[in-house]
């Protein structure tokens, strides 16, 4: 590889079964190729270091439009290839200086990668998000707290106290409903985990990023055999029906991003579905 180009990795596989990868288009429109590395095959494309080098990446990752384009291109390659053979997606922005240096890095972790491939082979990931149902605010008639309706200072003060009291009751009701929703989310996660090969909790999504203001109580991923999707969706529906305090969203199937074995990610037992513990 020349000095001004690097190698962007999409996924690692034990074998691509001779699939023609050149039909896949990767980041920055580059053609995808299969690179042999330490007895594994890595789906890669060559990238310009002026855009994908370390300094450029630091800068570009802060640019939402750039990040979205790259994330979607990265995902498109992984998704298409995952229909053809088992693979381990690599994390976004894994860039090597050459095929040779990539092989050296992968070689040191070959056994671990093969074990991870074995684990995800023939399996897909499903995402389940659960939100607390926005409670119906038991709002008193607006007129009752309108200053115009208060004939005297004393009445105004009475109205103020009544407002504070009502507000306190509202907040306490909200705390209570969140607590109930969190308990429900824990139950749903435990139930779904029991039907999955593995499960993993993601941090709750940022409302700013998702555009969804409902409090997120669960953001989980479940690894399932590829033919278990229908049954799992039925489980999700049933769990949602059993917990009216939650609104449940199912996404997938995804390539097994969340089960590549790093960060102890596959080991969670679902102790804190909302991710409120200091683990994120």
């Amino acid at each position, binding site marked *: 590889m020349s000095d001004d180009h*690097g190698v962007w990795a999409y996924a690692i596989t034990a074998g691509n079964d001779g699939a023609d990868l050149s039909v896949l288009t990767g980041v920055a429109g580059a053609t995808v190729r299969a690179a042999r590395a330490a007895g594994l095959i890595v789906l890669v494309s060559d990238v310009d270091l002026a855009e994908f080098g*370390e300094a450029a990446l630091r800068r570009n990752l*802060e640019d939402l439009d750039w990040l*979205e384009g790259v994330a*979607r291109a990265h995902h498109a390659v992984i998704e298409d290839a995952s229909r053809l053979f088992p693979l381990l997606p690599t*994390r976004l*922005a894994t860039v090597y200086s050459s095929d040779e240096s990539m092989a050296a890095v992968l070689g040191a972790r070959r056994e671990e990668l093969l074990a991870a491939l074995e684990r995800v082979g023939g399996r897909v990931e499903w995402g389940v998000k659960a939100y607390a149902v926005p409670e119906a605010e038991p709002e008193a008639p607006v007129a009752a707290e309108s200053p115009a309706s208060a004939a005297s200072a004393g009445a105004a003060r009475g109205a103020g106290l009544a407002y504070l009291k009502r507000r306190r009751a509202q907040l306490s009701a909200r705390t209570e409903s969140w607590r109930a929703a969190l308990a429900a989310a824990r139950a749903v996660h435990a139930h779904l985990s029991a039907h999955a090969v593995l499960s993993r909790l993601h941090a709750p999504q940022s409302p*700013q990023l998702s*555009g969804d203001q409902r409090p997120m109580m669960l953001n989980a991923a479940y690894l399932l055999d590829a033919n278990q999707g229908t049954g799992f969706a039925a489980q999700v529906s049933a769990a949602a029906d059993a917990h009216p305090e939650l609104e449940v969203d199912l996404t*997938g199937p995804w390539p097994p991003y969340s089960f590549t074995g790093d960060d102890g990610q596959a080991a969670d037992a679902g102790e804190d579905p909302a991710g409120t513990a200091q683990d994120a």
Partner: protein
Amino acid sequence: MGLARELVPAELPSQRVALVDLLDRVLAGGVVVTGEITLSVADVDLVTISLRALIASVSALAGPAQEEETR
């Protein structure tokens, strides 16, 4: 409730996934086999920093999140 009940699992066409769901996976999932260049980019720390900046840039947009469906 609601959404999940209507979902038809599997073999959905490769529809556009929500960016926020995708970022959960490509930034916090995927195997990390550190390359020389991205030594720290693949690090969770930098990803966290990036997301903080991201959120700031999203807030600056008029219509958050809906934007991603229009490309």
